[in-house]
């Protein structure tokens, strides 16, 4: 899960990383009160998990109560790249002498951790790395040995950061950040900028932290989790224990297996449609799980057709078909359903589905045929998901014609 900046700072602060004192608040008067407690000047920062908030006007300095109120009024409720600002972080403003960059993440190709350190912070680090390759010091860190003091000092010198007021303080801060990343079960810890203040102090002025959801069992992350789901559909799916990702299209997707669900979305877009979601119901297709999945997808107002794509392995085709039919008996579904059933005893399963086939329930033997049928039904319902009688166009998400054997 991606933390908001204020949560990232709280997370880092709890592990001893110096961060600015501040408060997260959600109405203008609370902003003024927080600013008065912190002491002017303050910075009011929009809390959204998307880049570019500075350019969008989501960060403002206030030198008195009036300015703080005005800043809060302007920022709260603002839309930044489709993200509505519900909360701001108010913190003490600092006089900045220098801006640096540091991050820890996993290098998947090397299968170990990677630290990036640069004297050029406050800007897009990928652009810095592209322009001046030597400006970013990369350090592979062994998952067992961790970051040693000697390694850390050398890293600081490679990054030409030995001109900071206190190298010892920087090395200690990097060590604490590493602990936050490794012991804190983070997938990413990025501080950009890491500033040197006019007074010579080192402070993490921003914090981008992604925590590993799989490690939640050994941490107390409930407060973070509570602020996560912005999408109503995703909340509903999570409550039912389903693997769901909300998308913007009209074809509701239910599949068993993450790969198959992704592949289903691709095939729908290949034939000119758009998927409303990713939904993996896991192995087999038990009636209760299928019913829960149908409910969640059906509740999405954009969905005009539901595409159920199941491969029966250990769960045989007839059991899968019975599960689907039983689920349909339990929930009232407003959209037509197209089922593609394949795998062990698929023919027997399709026979069962055939007995229930109607305009509301179609069965197609292949993924592509089923996707076509679904997209056609979606188009008929008047939503912009391809048009009947028009050959499916290769949309922008279409597949490049590469890799075919001549």
């Amino acid at each position, binding site marked *: 899960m991606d933390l908001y900046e204020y949560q990232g700072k709280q997370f880092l602060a709890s592990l001893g990383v110096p961060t600015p004192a501040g408060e997260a608040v959600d109405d203008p008067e609370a902003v003024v009160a927080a600013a008065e407690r912190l002491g002017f000047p303050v910075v009011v920062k929009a809390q959204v998990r998307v880049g570019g908030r500075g350019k969008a006007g989501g960060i403002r300095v206030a030198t008195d109560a009036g300015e703080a109120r005005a800043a809060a009024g302007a920022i709260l409720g603002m839309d930044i790249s489709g993200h509505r600002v519900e909360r701001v972080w108010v913190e003490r403003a600092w006089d900045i002498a220098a801006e640096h960059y540091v991050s820890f993440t996993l290098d998947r190709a090397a299968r170990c951790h990677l630290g990036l350190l640069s004297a050029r912070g406050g800007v897009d680090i990928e652009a810095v790395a592209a322009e001046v390759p030597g400006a970013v010091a990369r350090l592979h860190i062994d998952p067992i040995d961790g970051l040693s003091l000697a390694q850390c000092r050398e890293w600081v010198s490679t990054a030409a950061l030995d001109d900071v007021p206190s190298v010892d303080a920087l090395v200690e801060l990097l060590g604490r950040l590493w602990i936050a990343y490794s012991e804190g079960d983070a997938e990413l810890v990025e501080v950009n900028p890491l500033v040197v203040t006019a007074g010579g102090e080192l402070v993490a002025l921003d914090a981008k932290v992604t925590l590993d959801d*799989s490690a939640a069992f050994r941490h107390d992350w409930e407060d973070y989790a509570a602020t996560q789901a912005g999408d109503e559909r995703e909340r509903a799916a999570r409550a039912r224990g389903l693997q769901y990702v909300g998308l913007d299209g009209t074809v509701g997707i239910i599949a068993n297996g993450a790969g198959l669900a992704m592949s289903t979305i*691709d095939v729908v877009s290949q034939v000119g449609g758009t998927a409303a979601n990713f939904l993996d119901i896991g192995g087999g297709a038990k009636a209760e799980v299928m019913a829960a999945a149908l409910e969640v997808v059906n509740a999405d107002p954009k969905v005009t057709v539901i595409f159920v794509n199941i491969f029966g392995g250990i769960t045989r085709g007839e059991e899968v078909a019975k599960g689907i039919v039983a689920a349909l008996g339990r929930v009232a579904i407003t959209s037509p359903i197209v089922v593609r059933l394949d795998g062990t005893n698929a023919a027997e399963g399709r026979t069962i589905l055939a007995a229930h086939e109607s305009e509301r329930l179609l069965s197609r033997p292949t993924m592509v045929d089923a996707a076509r049928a679904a997209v056609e039904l979606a188009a008929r319902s008047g939503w912009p998901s391809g048009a009947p009688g028009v050959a499916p166009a290769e949309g922008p998400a279409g597949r490049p014609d*590469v890799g*075919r054997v001549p």
Partner: protein
Amino acid sequence: MTILVDEHTKVVYQGLTGSQGRFYGLRNRAYGTQVVAGTNPRKAGTDVEGVPVFATVGEAVQATGATVSCIFVPAPGVLPAVLEAAGAGVELVVVITEGVPTHDQARMFATVSRDFPATRLLGPNCPGVISPGRCNIGITAGEIARGDGPVGIVSRSGTLTYQALHELTQAGVGQTTCVGIGGDPVPGTTFVDCLALFEADPDTRVVMLIGEIGGSAEEEAAEYVGQMATPVVGYVAGLSAPVGRRMGHAGAIVSGSRGTARAKIEALGRAGVAVGRDPSEAARLVAEVVAGL
């Protein structure tokens, strides 16, 4: 020949006494796999339908000669379970469990490769490995596979693998071995590892590679394909996946401009890999290559 496992492979199941371990362990035995032992320190001395349960993998190995361990223990216990298996000297540790923390994955891979270089880790979050007709370790339905074939399969996705096995079998095309490397960020065994094993196997004459978004394993595989004599056919899922969203598997995420399906398909294409537009087309392409052998 097969890779990794065959009819002589003896397997110990860590977590055999749990519901998942029991279900799949017994299924694997019914398939013909030599399921020789289970472990559970609190149930040592008992058995699961005739399969003896030992306190540790070390004891199980000593008593039965098991050379492979298959892990079904819950995610928090996977790291110690892997280290226990590697320490007991097994050659292959197959981790089926999903939801192992990423830092644990990195720690267990680093420890196994440094301290137990003779042990190979497969997974976590993988369906396992099957050499059809000989040995099935994990959760793949053995019925959909067919042995003695020319096709080796390596995949990051479970159901897409089953789909491929099923379609090849329906088309009368057999498989040597099918390896699920799993969808997590730190896989113990990579595409490149499996491509090398298949390349060295005289009976594997075509390789099918099934990838998905996230990371750069497909790009690394594409680079390796250049050195191979065996033809490779591919499929990559996730062309329409949005940026920054995890699509089910922990490792299936496009980060900024990195890890897109398009880049992977293009890299494989440049390396001469025939890439199917959907899983069925990929299976047809494999069958075509097999027909031309």
